[in-house]
């Protein structure tokens, strides 16, 4: 509730900006051993857009995602999600923001082992104390190809199936924005491809705004926009229509 009110009172933002980050700096440690994981990153994500973040290992991709999602605080800079400045929010406001606006897909799935697939998917709703919409659940599970896996526990599912459960879980509450940090990082390339397709599909079908970190050059054909991070700075941006070869070219230039 509070979140919605704040967004009403908030500063005017472009109507279609789901995420708006300015001048993000994240420093780990202090003094001579300090590491600057981000050094002044600006990023805007429009509603309904699928943004891929790429870059060499250690370039600050995960750090950026964590800060955008409110899991970590920047050393300086601001992040607005759905118009709300989140870097100063306290824990309970952040929690409410997460319930309403943020979805996550993790590299290691992070499913709860004691719950079956359906229960895992419904978890965000039950945490928020909301009633699940049966049709929506059926549609999601159908889309993810999990119809026959509803009552399987994570231990009884393949990696790809587990990640599909995780995606369904992140979509179930129709968040303003979905963050995915290397969602295919723990899968073979074929399964990973299927997962990328599903993400693209949810963007197209539901207009699900998504920010995704990936190492897959194929992401190029999937994403609307690709941001390249190197040494904590955005160094390049590719738009729709670029090819895997373009991506590889940029990547090798950064390495």
């Amino acid at each position, binding site marked *: 509730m509070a979140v919605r009110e704040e967004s009403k009172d908030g500063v005017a933002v472009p109507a279609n900006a789901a995420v708006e980050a300015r001048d993000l700096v994240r420093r780990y440690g202090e003094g001579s051993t300090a590491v600057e994981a981000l050094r002044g990153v600006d990023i805007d994500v429009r509603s309904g857009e699928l943004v891929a973040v790429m870059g060499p290992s250690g370039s600050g991709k*995960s750090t950026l995602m*964590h800060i955008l*999602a409110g*899991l*970590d605080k920047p050393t300086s800079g601001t992040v607005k999600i759905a118009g709300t400045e989140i870097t100063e929010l306290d*824990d*309970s406001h952040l*929690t*409410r923001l*997460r*319930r309403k606006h*943020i979805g*996550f897909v*993790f*590299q*290691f799935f*992070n499913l*709860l*082992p*004691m*719950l079956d697939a359906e*229960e895992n998917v419904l*978890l*965000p709703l*039950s*945490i*928020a104390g909301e009633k699940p919409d049966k049709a929506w659940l059926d549609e999601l599970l159908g889309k993810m190809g999990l119809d026959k896996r509803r009552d399987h526990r994570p231990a009884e599912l393949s990696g790809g199936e587990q990640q599909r459960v995780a995606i369904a*879980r992140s979509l179930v*509450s129709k968040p303003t924005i979905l963050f995915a*940090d290397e969602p295919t990082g723990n899968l073979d390339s074929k399964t990973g491809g299927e997962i990328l397709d599903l993400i693209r599909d949810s963007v197209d079908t539901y207009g699900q705004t998504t920010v995704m970190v990936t190492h897959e050059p194929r992401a190029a054909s999937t994403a609307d926009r690709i941001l390249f991070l190197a040494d904590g700075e955005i160094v390049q941006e590719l738009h729709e229509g670029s090819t895997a070869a373009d991506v590889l070219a940029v990547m090798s230039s950064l390495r």
Partner: protein
Amino acid sequence: MFLVALKGLAGRKLRAVLTAVAIVLGVAMISGTYVLTDTIKAAFSTVFTTVYAKTDAVVTGKVAFGNNANSNNLPPSFSASLLGKVRNLPGVAAADGGIGDLAHLVGRDGKVISGHGAPALAFSVHSGGDQRFNPLTLVSGAWPVGAHEIDIDEHTASTAHYEVGQSIGVIARGPTTKYRIAGIVKIGGVSSLGGATMAIFDFPTAQRIFHKEGKLDSIDIAAANGTSPAQLVSEIKPLLPPTAEVRTAQGQAKQATKDTNGFLSIINDFLLAFGGVALFVGTFVIANTLGITIAQRTRELATLRTLGANRRQVLLSVLLEALVIGIVASITGLFLGLALAKGLNAVFVHFGLNLPQAGTVFKTRTIVVALVVGILVTLLAALRPAIRATRVPPISAVREGAVLPVSRFARFSAQAALLTIGGSVALMLVGLFVSGLSTTQRLLAIGVGAAAVFLGVAMLAKTLVPPLARVLGWPATEIGGAAGELARGNAMRNPQRTASTASALMIGLALVTLVSVLASGLKTTFSDAVNSIFRGDYALTATDNFSPISVASATALKNVPGANVVSGVRAGDGKAFGHRINVTAVSGDIAKVIVVKWQDGSQATPGALRNDGAFVSKDYAKKHHLSVGSPVAVEVPSGKRLHLVLRGIFAPPKGGSPYGDVTISTQRFDAEYQNPQNLYAFVDMAGGVTAANTAKLTKALGNFPDAKIATASQFKKNQESGIDTLLNLLYVLLSLSIVISLFGIVNTLVLTVFERTRELGMLRAIGMTRRQVRRMIRHESIVTALIGAALGIPVGVVLALMVGRAIKYPAFTIPVGTLVVFVIAAILAGLLAAILPARRAGKLNVLQALQYE
């Protein structure tokens, strides 16, 4: 969200069960205690109401200064003439007099048939007459008639295998006499009054046996129609001599119930205290187990946070988990208590306390207290881990190896621990030494102080674990090689965890050490005292070492050839300077067998007491400002006041005095006390202790199976056996807390094995054998147990020092042998606790372990 908590719990059954055990055992102790004492109370109350069912009022003898349930002396008898006067009252429909006394039954082997500490009762019945007041019912046979018949209780008849028509010995005032069993009886509908043996005689026979001709111990009265019991009592009252009192039957039953209940309440509180200790230890186990589980679930909790769970939900979900464990464990404990009540009773019977039992009484109060306490304790223990769980940041869902943020106060933990220890020791000192506190305040201060000491040491333990583990783990590295080396490292890896686990054991060991140190000091001083006081060759005591014995047995020894001196110490109750006291009495020849130091007077003083002399101890004289020549007035049970003059003041050794508060001459004592008895007697034999002398004395006691002869050193041992019995009882009761702490170790290890699955897989993959894995777990367990011992034993010794000082404990000796046994026991406990976790670790499938996530 709560589904997560519940399903999670269901998915971790073993862990949940191991956690619950701590509560189950503690709650079982509480519910068992209540069930036991309630059952005994109900049995007594049934007996008393049945006994007085047909009676409206009862006249009994009265000790001038009030009857005392724990007294050695029976109330004095009153003149039988009262019966006639009572019968003549208009409100009386019927009245009958009776005799009640103590008499041991003697079995075929010539030994006393033991009631396991329960009294050996004797009653009279009016065999030919009206049985309306008779509380007994015949099971078989008939009422005893004449000088040679007896009835006995069903319990004794069945346990000692006696039947109607057989002959059984009785020892009352004189030597054993044989009687023919005429009948077998029940009292108040139960076959046994707590194992008490019963000898029932014809009324005139009872009077003769107990030397109560022309006297009565009780009168049962039925009111005439229209007279209420209260009216009856007020009619009778004016007729009574000062040594008798009258109560309505209801009042009498109530009084009797109250006397037994008072005693049972002490047992109840005593046992509850151990239940409390067990639960206290249990909180450590639960808090630790939950703490570990939560640390292991960091990622899961963080994921929940990223999915929108707030701190409150996390807190509640952990508490919910604890609540479920608490409820299930408490209910299990509640019912286990029913079984434990039987076990506790068996323990008491074993230690010589046999109490009557009827149908098991399971009161609502028992259920409520057991459940509430069990659940609250679990929740309380879960609070800290639950709060820690709320501090898990959402980012831990994605960051490998994220650790829980430490509390802001963590770096002050050592200081806080020292502060806690200091504060609690101060509180204990207040409870122990500050005068003017009530017993409740004192016990509260000591109890809370001791609990806080344990808490403080547990808090400090974290700091102490690494150095302790380094030292105590050294043998493991020597014996266990690489496995031992790893075990020591593992014990030091998470000091907090090892500390909490060891702390639970520390509490039990500290308490065990406390009692053993106190008992050892008590024994040493007692033994020193006996050595310095007693100069006789032999001691004559009751077979149970503490009951008073008939004077006749001592007299019998006087005729043994070579017995130079046989001198007894009489004992009875009295009242002086407004307080109930122990009165003892001696004759002049006691000086030859008991030697004490005299502050005023000499070894000749006991012989110079004559009719009005008395001597007291130094402390008693000081307390009442007495000096030689001071008048001392002692009231005896008959109500008579003896006006005595102080003739001497002796200084008893620290370990205890051979005499009571006030000692008078045997001649005066025998004149004033009905049925005088010896506490003990000492014998000086020509030739000292020899086999021949022992045989002669034992033979002379042939007819007195309630008495036995012991050499001075046997006597010392026998007297100490009381301390040993109490000590063993305490050990048994404290072992419950130790068992709980063992489950704590099992728990920690199981969780640790689980947590290190991958690591164990790696160790196996690089060539560690199953045996080595098991050995590693075992050594870790032993190191943890040894840390518990290293903390607990010193704490126990320090507590003993404090408590010992407070109760003016004379000697402080450290029972090194016993403490070494405790350390060995701790090692064994560690081994025992490691069995299950080591098996699990050994069974790990290398491949699966490596894939484990």
